[in-house]
């Protein structure tokens, strides 16, 4: 599904990713954990093609297509989804028109017909219900005046609507209470169908109690320094990230 090889990337003059390798097969859930400043969010931005995040070397392919050669919107149309840590507020554009435009852009890229208004509304209502967002929210501006939890649920709602091949969840747990966390996790788990892959970026193990990963990777100083199964996350929970500094990296 996704293959990252020796990826180096920088923001302005600072190199943040320093030789990252990652291989994800269809249906797999990979958790990426690490201390602040390790490059966790940078990875999502680089993969999505954000301006100002410059790839110095290495390669990334999504289903054998060169991801780095695509524009931001082409990457999305190719099946990449990024759930933002801090979703952007766009007060003048309603959730409804935003999602309709987005869903139909994806459908067009897949060679499918655009949804009618009625079909779209039905789908949107179902997705809202799944993440427990009230329906009137569709009429409001994108993320406008939403609480932190609502914004995160909106990201998951969008993921459900857009049916990506690979979803990157960038700290979808940050700022959530346990109830909201469960709603987000339930939304994500509902999309695990054995084909769709996930990268779950998180600082804490807590989210992984609800979204069980197949693999856990520790990112430090721009590289994956340790990989393992779900038990690795529990280890981090117990001992923190201090061991990284003490040079105990295997």
């Amino acid at each position, binding site marked *: 599904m996704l293959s990252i090889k020796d990826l180096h990337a920088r923001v302005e003059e600072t190199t943040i990713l320093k030789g990252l390798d990652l291989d994800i097969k269809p249906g797999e859930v990979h958790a990426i954990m690490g201390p602040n400043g390790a490059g966790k969010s940078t990875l999502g931005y680089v993969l999505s093609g954000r*301006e100002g995040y410059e790839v110095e070397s290495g390669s990334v392919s999504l289903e054998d297509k060169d991801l780095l050669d695509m524009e931001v*919107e082409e990457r*999305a149309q190719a099946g990449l989804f990024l759930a933002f840590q801090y*979703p*952007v*507020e766009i007060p*003048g554009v309603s959730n409804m028109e*935003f999602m309709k435009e987005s869903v139909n852009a994806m459908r067009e890229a897949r060679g499918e017909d655009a949804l009618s208004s009625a079909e779209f509304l039905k789908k949107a209502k179902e997705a809202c219900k799944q993440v427990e967002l009230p329906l009137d929210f569709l009429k409001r501006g994108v993320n406008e005046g939403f609480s932190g939890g609502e914004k995160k649920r909106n990201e998951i709602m*969008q993921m459900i609507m857009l049916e990506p091949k690979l979803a990157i969840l960038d700290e979808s747990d940050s700022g959530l209470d346990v109830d909201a966390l469960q709603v987000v996790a339930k939304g994500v788990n509902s999309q695990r169908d054995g084909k769709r892959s996930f990268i779950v970026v998180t600082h804490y193990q807590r989210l992984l109690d609800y979204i069980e990963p197949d693999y856990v990777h520790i990112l430090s100083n721009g590289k994956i320094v340790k990989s393992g199964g779900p038990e690795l996350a529990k280890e981090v929970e117990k001992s923190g990230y201090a061991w990284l500094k003490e040079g105990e990296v295997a």
Partner: protein
Amino acid sequence: MSQWLAQVIERAGNVDDWLASARSKALAELKQKEWPGRRTEAWRYTSLHKVADLNLATTSEATTAEAPQVEGLNSIDLVFVDGHLVSDIANLTLPEGVTIASLDAKSDAAESVFGQVKPQHHLFGLVNDVLAQHGVVIDIAPNANVEQPIRIVNFASDGVESHQRSLVRVGEGAKAVIIEHGVGNGHSLNTAFAEYDIADKAALEHYRLALHEGEAIHVGGSHFRLHNESKLNSTLVGYGSQLTRLDVDIEHAGEHAFAKFNNIYLLAPKEHFDLHSTIEHAQPNGTTEENARGIIGDKAKAVFNGRIHIHRHAQKTLAELNNRNLLLTRGAQINTKPELEIYADDVQCAHGATVAEIDEEALYYMLTRGIDKQQALVMLNFGFVQELLFQMPNRALADWLQPILKQRFERMMEQQ
């Protein structure tokens, strides 16, 4: 003095009705006025040379018109064609507490509002004072809660000059919704001035749609006086046409009054739009929130002058004024001037004017959702004014305006 104004003064001599004494005062003022030129501050960026020699018919053949239908609005329509009231107001079914009369008939409401709210320095306001023989007087009884919107529709026909007046009194504790809806695209001059007296604890929801296009010249104003604890929520939506000039005055004449004033202007290529707003905080504890947003097409010109004047006595005033503009091409022009004049020392005020650029973060967010860049830019640019449409309390009117404005905007983008 222009040839046109000389003619106005001459014609004013023929107007003789129950408002004669108020009209003659206005005429005396008008005679003192100089024809505005580049050095006249209020007309600095708007040339009146197209009006100076105007010689249009002052009577009209038209006697009927269909008001634009707004689905779900369910409004009481008062339709004017070239300044003449063509609706049969005697046979309207009105909600309780609403009285609607023609300006022809002498009434206490008309007498207490005509020329009393509108400041006398507006040149075209004075022209309207002396020439507008037709108009409506809307009187909302104290404590009446009138949910059904009352819409004043002004049609301007090709080749005609017309003047229309609206006088509104919202009684103590009453609530009302009033829409001024102007249309016309032929070569015409229409002045439409409205005065609103909003009594203690009353609330007015107000809209002014100045949807004149093409060769139409529209000069008008909406003027409000707010008494103690009254509320005004007003939205102005304007196109440019050959020349559209609007003056809005909001006077906080009582304490603890609240005014929200949003305006949207959307200028197609070569249009000219000029909005001057003045908020007078004459009493303490008043609040004003004014937001003006404009998108300006190629070779079009917008003028925004927003003045907030806080008198020495008006302590604890909260006032915010913000003007943002989006220029679609290098040939588009905005002259913006927010002015704060503060004589009280315990107030909170903010003002700003910007020529907007696209929010890169919002654009990136939209692109990550697979939306094409061109389409994302259209949505973001239009979203810039749509944000104020979302704030309109009347959803039916907002839902009617949205696609009309969107289409106008899409045409503007194509014409770049």
